[in-house]
């Protein structure tokens, strides 16, 4: 009798607790990695941003690093550069990606798989190979780009050595690297737009432009929201391209917030200041992303 009384109870308890524990066990590896490589560095960097190494001792300085940042002309230069690249490069890239996605989706295009792959390949290219490729192409003396410009009678361009052209070079490299990524996202969304809509519109006499404007674009809105927000975050964190192409120069013309953070941390060993830059950047990204989400969601509704 006692055993039969116990058994259901045990079973119930086992049954009751198992479903609650199992999902967490499955999540455990991710949670451990997330805690170790994300949460811990975030918290540690927050602490670091309130410290300064004085005579070899990590010393608490309160908001001292943030105060210094507020009056640091180089930080404002980095911020301005980053914003200039953001407002020119992101619209340019997403516009191009949209055109490419529509082309990739068109039945008129032959060898579609080839074109899709060709435009997506740059995204998997390693940083170093990419850096060498572009610095060779854009070399002012023996670069292919200047050779082509000269051969059609145009003057040479100091691609990496002039403050304005250096920014242009960064924008070109960025666009080359990431356009394929956004194009693939658009393409996936395009394929979910029902073909009947286009057929119906065609029967109603809509032109190609009207079909694009009234069917394609609204259908792509979720993908556009996603890519705008992701590209904005990516560009605000921009580091790779100026690092491999211009080293932030000439005279800080392509210094981005990410580059400045790197310089402070790894060149000047000023980890506290670098962490403060990281937190200010996080704040900027948070605010801009919120504004974008808010804006794009309202238009959707």
């Amino acid at each position: 009798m006692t055993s039969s009384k116990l058994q259901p109870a045990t079973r119930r308890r086992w049954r009751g607790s198992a479903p609650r524990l199992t999902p967490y066990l499955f999540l455990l590896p991710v949670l451990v990695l997330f805690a170790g490589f994300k949460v811990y560095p975030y918290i540690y960097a927050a602490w670091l941003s309130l410290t300064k190494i004085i005579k070899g001792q990590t010393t608490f300085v309160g908001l001292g690093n943030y105060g210094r940042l507020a009056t640091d002309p180089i930080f404002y230069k980095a911020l301005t550069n980053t914003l200039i690249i953001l407002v020119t490069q992101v619209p340019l890239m997403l516009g191009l990606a949209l055109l490419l996605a529509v082309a990739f989706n068109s039945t008129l295009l032959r060898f579609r798989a080839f074109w899709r792959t060709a435009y997506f390949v740059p995204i998997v290219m390693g940083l170093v190979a990419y850096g060498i490729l572009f610095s060779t192409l854009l070399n002012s003396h023996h670069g292919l780009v200047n050779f082509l410009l000269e051969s059609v009678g145009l003057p040479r361009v100091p691609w990496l050595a002039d403050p304005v052209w250096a920014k242009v070079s960064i924008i070109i490299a960025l666009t080359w690297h990431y356009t394929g990524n956004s194009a693939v996202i658009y393409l996936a969304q395009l394929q979910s737009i029902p073909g009947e809509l286009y057929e119906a519109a065609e029967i109603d006499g809509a032109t190609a432009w009207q079909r694009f404007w009234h069917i394609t674009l609204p259908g792509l809105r979720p993908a556009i929201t996603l890519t705008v927000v992701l590209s904005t975050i990516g560009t605000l964190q921009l580091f790779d391209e100026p690092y491999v192409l211009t080293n932030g120069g000439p005279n800080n013309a392509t210094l981005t917030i990410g580059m400045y953070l790197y310089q402070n941390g790894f060149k000047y060993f000023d980890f506290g200041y670098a962490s403060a830059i990281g937190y200010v950047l996080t704040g900027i990204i948070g605010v801009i992303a919120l504004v974008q989400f808010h804006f794009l969601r309202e238009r959707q509704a």
Partner: protein
Amino acid sequence: MFAATGRLTRLALATTALATLATAASASELSGTITVWSWTAPADGLEAAVAGFNELHPGVTVKVEDVGNPAIWDKITTGMAAGGAGLADVLNIGIDYIGNYIETFPTGLVNLSEVGADDLAAQFPSGMWASGSSADGAVYGIPYEVNTSGFFYRKDLFDQAGIDINSIVTWDDLIAAGPKLKEATGADLIAMDKAATVADSAGLWQLLTNLQGAFYFNAAGEITMNGPAGLRSLELIKKANDAGIVADIPGGWDNFMMQIKGQTNVAVIPAASWAAGVFENEAPDMAGKWRLRLPPSVEAGGLTAAISGGTYLSVAGTSPNKEAAWEFVKYALGTLEGQQATYEGGGMFPGFKPMLESDGFVKKSDYFDAEVNKFFIDELGQNTPVVNYTTDYARALKAYTDAQTQVLLSGADPKTVLDEAAALVAGQTGRTIAAN
């Protein structure tokens, strides 16, 4: 009870005896593996010292790793910031980094004074020795490479233009000769990375400023980059640039090679002593065309010598095998035999005085038609000032490079940009700008 105490005492005595034995044994018979971090040619030099070291300490395995430069600085910095995790036992560290490592990470490197490094001090140039020590004189690095200024010029181009190199005494003379040389040969006098987008491009300014006995900072650590010497240097550079005799060649190794090989025609390369071997190895076809001399002075009668960088060997504070690591450093840099093997293998210019005075160290080079090492020994003999890199060299270097870029690319006023750069460094570091 009594018996137990007795046994304990005996055990303790035995342990002490064993420990003593172990210490005595480890001094003569070290064992284990030590790793050495260096790059390219300096790594080759250290590799060459391993065989001789193993004759003395057969139990120690030495692994020399070429981790690349500048990658090595990021690797050491991250390792230091992580409390020394993952660092090699022996680290090859540049003069421009070591001061900052010593001050920022007080336990990152072993205080070599505690293991007898001070005995070596008299064997090395004092200025170079001082830069590897902390403010209170504790030694953290033993000088490996000691570079002095190497002024290389194209004899064929100067001859073609009919300019007697011996008539050039000061940098003003040299710059004045530039247009004539360019007209006759088409070659620019000198090359600079005007946009400084590949590497920092401050070598020439640092040389000119050193020749006037100054640097970014003075001995007290105050900012002097915008002082009279620094300003004079940038004015000289601007004068050369305005005269149209400065070629704009991006920095980096490949572009340096193109100058050496004569593919980019420049008449003068103010490099450092380490470059002499590179010329002979990389551009054998140019034999007889390049010559070497002491650099011109800035003011007539001024210094014609400058220490232009160098490197140290240090032992990581977290090394599990510090004793073996120090023995290796001591062998490679503090013995004539080790120095000879290292020099043979890598060709880095040494600072060890017995090595500089040893037979055969000064020998005639057919390539330069001169006793090359004699120039550098002469420079070490001149009374060059101690170069104070401080913990903020990297910031000052960056601020200067940006100032120079404005002068070279958009003709900015040297005084204005140098004052701005000094103010920027002062704001970043809390250092004061020295009163002129």
